[in-house]
Structures are given as C-alpha cells and as structure tokens.
C-alpha cells in the first residue's frame, strides 16, 4: 500500500513579520524543503508612474520619496539629476556636496534597517534595536536639515529646499565619531556570531553569472564578488572627487555570494559611506543652494535616462518630455523589484527558515517593488 502524499502550499504574507512589508510568497513545500517560490507583489501599488504624468516636474519630488521610503534622499537625488539633465542646467558645488552627504547618510540609515531587520529575521532581536538607535541619530540630522524624518522633499531639481542647519556639520562629525565604535559592537554581537554565520553562510548562494543574467545590482551583485558600483563606474554628482573602496563578497565564511556575504557587504559599505561623508564635510564649499532652482520647469522635447547607486542597487529614471510642464512618461527602474525576482532561484532546495534568511539578504522595500 502506498500513502498518497502531496506538497503543501504555504502562503507567507502579505501579513507576516518577516516579509518586510506586504509581500506574499507562495511557497511549495516538501516537508520543510522548498520546491518553488512565487512572489506575489502589488499590495502596495500606488500608480506612481501614472501619477507623475498629471503632475508638474516639481510636484513629482514628494512622490519619489514614497518609493524606497528607507532611502528617500537617494530617490530624490536620482530624480533631480534626471530633470537637471533634461533641462541641461548646472547646480552649484555646494548643492552637489550636500546631496552626496545626504545620500550617504541615507545609505547608512537604510543599511542599518537592512542589517537590523536581518538580525531580527534570524532571531536576534537586540541588534535590531541597536541599529535603530543609530539610525535615529541620522534621522535627527535630517530633521534639523529639512524638518522631516522619513519623506524629506529636500533635494529639488536644481538645488535644495533648505541650506544646512548651522549645527549640521558639527553634529554629523559627532555622529561619525559615535557610530564607528557602535559598528564594531554590532559586528561582535551579530556579524561574527557563530549561530548567525551558521544560519547565513552557504545559504542562498548567488553565482555572479546568474546575478548578471537577472540584472541584479547593488549590494547583492557586489556580494557575489562583482566590483560594480555606479558611484565609481558611472560617476554622478561629485562622487569622482572622493576616495572610497567598493567592498565585495569574498566568501569569508562560506561560498562567494551567500547570504552572509551580501550582509557583510552592507556592513562594510557603511564604513565606506562614513569615509565619503568625512571627505565631503572637509571639502564642503560655501555658496547658495537655491539659486539654480528654476521657477518653472518646462524642458525641451526629449528623453533622458539616469541611474544612481541607491542603497538597494541601481535606481534608474527614464523620463520622456513632450515640452510641457509635466512629464509625458516616467519609468522607474526599481532595484528591489529587479532583485526580488531571484527569490525562486535562491530558495529552491532550502528550508522554510532559509526563505527568511534569503529574503532578508535580498533586502527589498515593498514601496519600491510595487511603486
């Protein structure tokens, strides 16, 4: 007699503590082993791209904030660069420097969330709060700059909404000084913890060829050992003036491109961001930040594609102008959306608990996946 067996379908999400938002993963399980993963997205779809067509160029800025809400400064920066290219205007030096400082602070804040929630996914809850404690200080810096803590509407096409707060430079330097030892503490507590390594090393290995075929970018691609960073390889703003390393996965604890590598790339990127911020603060020129902001944005007919290195990967804006005050079409290449499609490839053959570990290392933000 044979017993009839069948695979179990488990719906992970949309309400689940570790799908990082309203993602639904349809897992097909053989016992605890995964045979198939189908991500279902769209629970947070807000028609960003269509919305833009009814807005003027300036009005789009607050909407870009709401895509990758953990890296709003980066979204604004990408959009601002795209519109400036369309208008063919030059922004003052000071603006560029402040933008870089903001984008890098935002990268640290975003990676802190990624790392903290990753720890919480693996079961270590304390690093999560340590990360949020440090992120809070960055949010405070943003708050004194522009009044907002999450969705800033700070980087505008042609300039910035406000100049820096008089205390900003001092407070940022203090933050860097405080944050370096905290990073060491975080590494001791989580990164080099034996159990954490056991859970993440050799889990969800992403070979570099697969990563390129899938169009993976950002820390995920670098975790697979590819030294590709738009800040260096396709410099925008003033990134070419700074000296920084591009950390890549080395397979220190397992195989190159495993979850631990992806995680550790983020940790080391934070150190590099600190370096960039320090250099930018040293070189920060004086000047006016609002002088180049156009009163009315009416670009000539044409199209533009710009890409920047957001914390999650390559964020691209494709804007078509029909010569009016609002864009004819805005298309966003969202890194999380592209990175998420690898889930099935990475999860097959692993266990349910590994799905959480892999999803955490992909580091998605649903606001950006669904837009």
């Amino acid at each position, binding site marked *: 007699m044979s017993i009839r067996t069948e695979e179990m379908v488990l719906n992970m999400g949309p309400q689940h503590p570790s799908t990082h938002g309203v993602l639904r993963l349809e897992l097909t399980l053989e016992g605890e082993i995964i045979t198939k993963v189908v991500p279902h997205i769209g629970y947070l779809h807000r028609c960003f791209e269509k919305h833009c067509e009814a807005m003027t160029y300036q009005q789009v800025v607050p909407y870009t904030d709401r895509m990758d809400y953990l890296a709003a400064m980066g979204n604004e920066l990408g959009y601002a660069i795209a519109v400036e290219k369309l208008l063919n205007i030059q922004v003052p030096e000071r603006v560029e420097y402040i933008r870089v400082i903001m984008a890098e602070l935002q990268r640290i804040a975003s990676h802190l969330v990624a790392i903290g929630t990753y720890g919480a996914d*693996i079961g270590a809850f304390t690093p999560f709060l340590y990360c949020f404690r440090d992120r809070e200080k960055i949010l405070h810096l943003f708050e004194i700059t522009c009044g907002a803590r999450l969705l800033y509407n700070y980087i505008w096409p042609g300039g910035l909404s406000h100049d820096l707060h008089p205390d900003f430079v001092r407070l940022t330097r203090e933050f860097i000084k405080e944050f370096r030892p905290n990073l060491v503490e975080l590494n001791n507590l989580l990164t080099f913890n034996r159990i954490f390594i056991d859970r993440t090393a050799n889990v969800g290995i992403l070979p570099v060829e697969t990563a390129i075929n899938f169009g993976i970018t950002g820390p995920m691609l670098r975790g697979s050992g590819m030294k590709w960073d738009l800040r260096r390889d396709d410099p925008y703003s003033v990134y070419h003036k700074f000296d920084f390393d591009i950390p890549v996965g080395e397979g220190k604890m397992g195989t190159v491109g495993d979850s631990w590598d992806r995680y550790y790339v983020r940790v080391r990127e934070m150190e590099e961001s600190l370096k960039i911020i320090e250099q930018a603060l040293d070189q920060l020129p004086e000047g006016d930040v609002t002088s180049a902001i156009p009163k009315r944005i009416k670009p000539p007919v044409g199209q533009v594609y710009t890409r920047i290195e957001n914390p999650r990967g390559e964020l691209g804006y494709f804007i078509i102008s029909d010569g009016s005050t609002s864009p004819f079409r805005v298309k966003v290449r969202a890194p999380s959306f592209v990175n998420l499609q690898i889930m099935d490839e990475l999860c097959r053959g692993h266990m349910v608990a590994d799905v959480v570990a892999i999803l955490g290392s992909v580091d998605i933000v649903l606001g950006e996946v669904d837009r």
Partner: protein
Amino acid sequence: MIYEFFYNLVGNEIIAGFIAASLPLLLFILPFALIAVLLERKVAGHMQDRLGPMRVGYHGILQTVADIIKLLQKEDIIARENDKMLFNIAPVLVFTGSYAAFAAIPFTSAYIGANIDLGIFYIIAVTGLVVAGILMAGWASNNKYSLLGAMRSAAQIVSYEIPTILVVLTLVMFTGTTNLMTLSENQTAYFWNWNIFGGPELSPAKFLLIPSMVIGFFVIYISTLAEVNRTPFDIPEAESELVSGYHTEYSGMKFAMFFLAEYANMFAVSAIVAALFFGGYHSPFGYLGNSLGVEWLIPVEQFFCFTFKGVFFVFVQMWLRWTLPRLRVDQLMTASWKYLIPIAFVNLLIVGIITLI
C-alpha cells in the same frame, strides 16, 4: 512537614496531599510568572538600550497585572475550522505538564509537593505531557504555521530529552538516588559540597569528577533551553518564520495559559539544574538560623536560596534570548544528535568509571 500539617488539619490523606501539592501553584507559580514576565521585559529593555515598561506603576511594575487583565477581557476566538475539543484541551494540557513538574521540586527541606522516590524521572515524564499539548494545539488550530511549529516542537523536545536524561542518569549513578529531596539534602551546606564541585565526599574522585560535572551541567542546561523553547532553540515559535508557531491561533486566556506555562517551565528546568548541580535549596555559606539558633529561619533561608538559584538561571535564559540568533531546525537536530548526546554518553561512562574506582 507541610503535608503533615495539612494532614493533621483535615485528617484525610487525599485532601491533604491535594492542598500540599497545589500550594506552589497559588503561592509560587502565579506570582513568579507575573514577576518573570516583567523581568524579561526589563532585562530585554536594558540590554537593548531602552527602558522597558515604564508607565503602569512605578517603573512599570504593574505592567503584567495590566496585561493579564487585558487578556482576561479579550475575546476567546475559536475559528470555525478548528478542532474545538482539542483546541480547548491543548493549553490546559501544556499548563498541567509544566505545573505538575513543580510537585516534585524541593523548595526547602520543609516543603516538597510530593516526596516521590523517582522524583527526577517523574519530572521528566510529566513534562512530556507538554509535547502532547503542543502537538494538539498545532493540529487543532488547523493552521499551517501552527502545524509546522508543533511538528518542529515535538521533534525538538523529544530529541533534547535524551541528553537531559543521560545527564540525569550520570547524576543518579553518582549520587545513588533519584529522589530530588535526598539529592538536595546530600549536598549539605557550603558550596564545595555541591555536585558541580564533585559532591560532598572529600576524596581524590571528587577532583576527577569536577570536569565531568561541569560538562554535564552545560549539556543539561543547553538541552533544557531547547526543551522550554527558548532562544537559540525557539524554533517552534520562531516569530520571524512561523508567526508564533503552535499558539498563533490562540487568544485571550488560552494564550495566557501557554504563556504562563512557558514561564513556569523556565523556572522548573532552572530549579532542576539548581537541584542537581548547585546544591538545591542549600545555602552556599551555611545558615544564619543555625548560628542564631532560630530553627524556623532555616527553611526560609533555604527557600530564598533555592528561588535565587532558580531565578538566576532564568535570568541567564533571558540573557541568552536577547543576545543570540536562532538556529535552523536541522542545525538544532545536529547539535543534539551529533554533539550533545555523544558528549553526554562519554560523560556518563567517565563518571561511571570514576564512581566504580
């Protein structure tokens, strides 16, 4: 002693036994659970650079009371697809399992719920009920997460019972008794007589035994952590994977029963570790009551010492919980079958040889 007191009072063996055995529930487990839940939150808070509950009462001391009241008022949700009978029995069974263990735990030389000769094995057997309860909860919830949690839990508890029993056997072989009362009594006052320091007899064997005892302590402590589903072995209720495992579907007082059982269990296993290795209720430095000549003070001191030891190990459990990540289910099995069980076996052999010589 307390049993005799009640026996004289009511003149009926069964009723007296009943009262004596239910004393720890009323006088100890409930207040302990209240304090332990608060302690956990405070410990977590301070470890995580925050304050923990601060609003209800002075520094939040009434927080758990408020929580219990909240849970009492909550709707007791039973979904249509649940197996109602099993769903209702499960929390009771889990709680019974962990509560029954308290009957054989010697709190002082004057009080033990039931002085059973097979005390330590009784505890291990009766906590086995918890597995049945958890499986029942997982099955009756008719929820895939609950089922996965329950299956994991059953596998985990069963495989970690083996190293626990092996270490207990080591101790039994060495002390020659399975009665926890006698076991505690043997490790008379002063800490160098504790089993972890090779027991009360002063002989060369005592010093040979110390490493084995320390290993045994670590093995049993790790496996009891797994048995009470605490981090790094909290896989059955792994929040980030299985929402909250077998008690996902429970609400209100039924959830509180699981919660209470968890904390009662935490103390029970800590108390067993304390009784086996750390002198049970004995004070490490002799008794104030002895030197003052006040006899009734001794049990009070013993109770204090025993609770202190138990709470200390509970604190270590909390400490671990807020420090370590969680193992994966296969790594958990590996840890038990490939490391703990062989170590416990070899340890058993070594202790056997030493005791024979």
